[in-house]
């Protein structure tokens, strides 16, 4: 397949991130194509969230380059802040502003970045709420009144408020029951199709890796050790990847081969 630079939403090249002497990300390279859903797996504490936070500029890097939608990303500089309109982030715990209602949470990025009438802002907020499968009445609730699944949906609606080109999801289905997790996966897939999103998803959920991700990248020892569609990763020879996908827990999910 011919790959031109314009095809990539995120390009990470030779990235090194560490805290004092402890190196977490070690000369890592990763390209995310436009319009794909990329799942990132890795050991707990292995640097998945660090990689995601470095890409969005929350953690400074030691070496390497990061480009998001063709623009280089520094840490906390003006270029990164202006790039912020082009991505939306779903944090693991939702990170909703607890003193604002659900509707105000969704309107917050709109209010800060655009000049638009109150009426239109309400309509857009309700539209986003309905797109993530919530009811317009839920807009008046406060984050403390929401269940785990609803919190994730509202956080997704807020991440999508400005119609970003890329959404970063940090363990979107953790803490949800299998049915809710399945619904959430389906929602991500639908929204990705309708809005043409690029999705960068950190997850441990084997089911969502299998059903929604176009490609899966495995992070071990600070490097991407395998990347490709799920069936390629299942055949990967890397010991950690084998242990991850062929361990006891993942075997339990598969029907017994006769």
């Amino acid at each position, binding site marked *: 397949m011919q790959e031109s630079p314009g095809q990539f939403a995120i390009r990470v090249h030779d990235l090194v991130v560490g805290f004092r002497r402890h190196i977490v990300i070690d000369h890592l390279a990763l390209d995310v194509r436009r319009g794909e859903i990329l799942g990132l797996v890795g050991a707990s504490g292995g640097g998945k969230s660090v990689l995601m936070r470095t890409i969005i500029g929350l953690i400074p890097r030691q070496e390497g380059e990061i480009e998001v939608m063709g623009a280089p990303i520094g840490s906390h500089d003006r270029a990164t802040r202006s790039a912020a309109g082009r991505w939306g982030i779903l944090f693991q715990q939702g990170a909703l502003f607890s003193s604002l209602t659900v509707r105000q949470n969704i309107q917050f990025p709109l209010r800060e970045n655009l000049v*638009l*009438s109150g009426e239109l802002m309400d309509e857009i907020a309700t*539209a986003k709420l309905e797109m993530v499968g919530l009811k317009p009445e839920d807009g008046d609730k406060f*984050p403390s009144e929401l269940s785990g699944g609803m919190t994730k949906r509202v956080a997704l609606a807020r991440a999508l408020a*400005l119609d970003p080109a890329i959404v970063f999801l940090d363990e979107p289905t953790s803490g949800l029951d299998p049915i809710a997790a399945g619904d959430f996966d389906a929602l991500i897939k639908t929204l990705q199709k309708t809005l043409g999103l690029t999705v960068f998803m950190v997850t441990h959920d084997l089911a969502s890796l299998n059903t929604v991700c176009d490609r899966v990248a495995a992070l071990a020892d600070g490097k991407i050790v395998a990347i490709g569609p799920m069936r390629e990763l299942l055949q990967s020879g890397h010991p950690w990847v084998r242990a991850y996908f062929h361990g006891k827990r993942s075997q339990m999910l598969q029907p017994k081969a006769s």
Partner: protein
Amino acid sequence: MATAPLLTATATGDVLELRPGGSWIAANVATLERLADAVAPQLDHSGTVKLDMAEVRELDTLGAWLLEKMSRRATSAGHRADVVGVSDNYAGLIEEVRQVNRRTPAAVPPRNPIVAKISDIGRSTIGASEDVTAFLQMLGSLCIAILGVLRRPRSLRLTSLVYQFYRVCWQAIPIVVLITFLIGAIIAQQGIFHFRKFGADSYVVDMVGILVLRELGVLIVAIMVAGRSGSAYTAELGSMKMREEIDALSTMGLDPIEVLMLPRIIALVCALPILSFIGSMAALYGGGLVAWFYGGMRPAIFIARLHEAVSVTHFEVGIIKAPFMALVIGVVACSEGLRVKGSAESLGKQTTTSVVKSIFLVIVLDGLFAVFFASIGM
């Protein structure tokens, strides 16, 4: 890549043809809203509205919603609206937007302002009585916890108690000394300045001594402790409540009152008399220095006058109040901490309430003590 959005409207006979073009995206919202508002009146009069989207370069939810709103307006006026020329890229988005905002949530009927006011007053009255209940409840649970500790002295968290004492007493000494020193100095200066007019400047010593030992020393220190340690207690317990740490404690069969609150309150009850004593001494010292340098009264004379002016009774009256004030501050701080709910805002609100309420109660308590001591002739 983004281009300026356009909207051309051509009316041929009964048909209004709308041709949006360019980038219909959120970044252009100001222009888009203007364009949409400009054609809005025409939508109500034309028989058929034809929306030709062939020239739309970019489209996002916001742009799609504005276009959908136009076609909805035409439909609701009883006309026909056709959407044509939708590119495959955006068909899904247009379809999705067509489903949203169909049902407006039932508007809440506005309340009668007079009724609302009365209901607010009622609510706050009930709230005030709940406050009293919460205070008494906390005091009761504290007594039960103390009885439990008396029965099993080993269950007292000594490490925690010592640590809390270190925080509320030892670390508070510098600021308490500084502030009470200044207050003592200011009282002495004012006294000398005004008493001098009728030649009574030597009575300044009586004023400083009695005022500081009976009232001001303990009151100022109690107010400072309420602001310094009471607020810290409320914020600590509140954030522990938010993160379910207190629930975790009770599920392990431990009593949060005994584990968290008892050491804190005992530390405060021990600390406040000590701080009041140190504070009173600092205030007298400040007063003495001002009397010497500003009033020209030699330290030996100041001390001799002080000896005549104050008795141990004055000191007792002041210091007896301290543990009770500490108890009030501690109980209020802990019970407000436990009333914190999920949000960051509620933590801030409860901390403010804790400080305001404990300062208020400390002053009320001081008034009650004044009445009491006056009636027993102390």
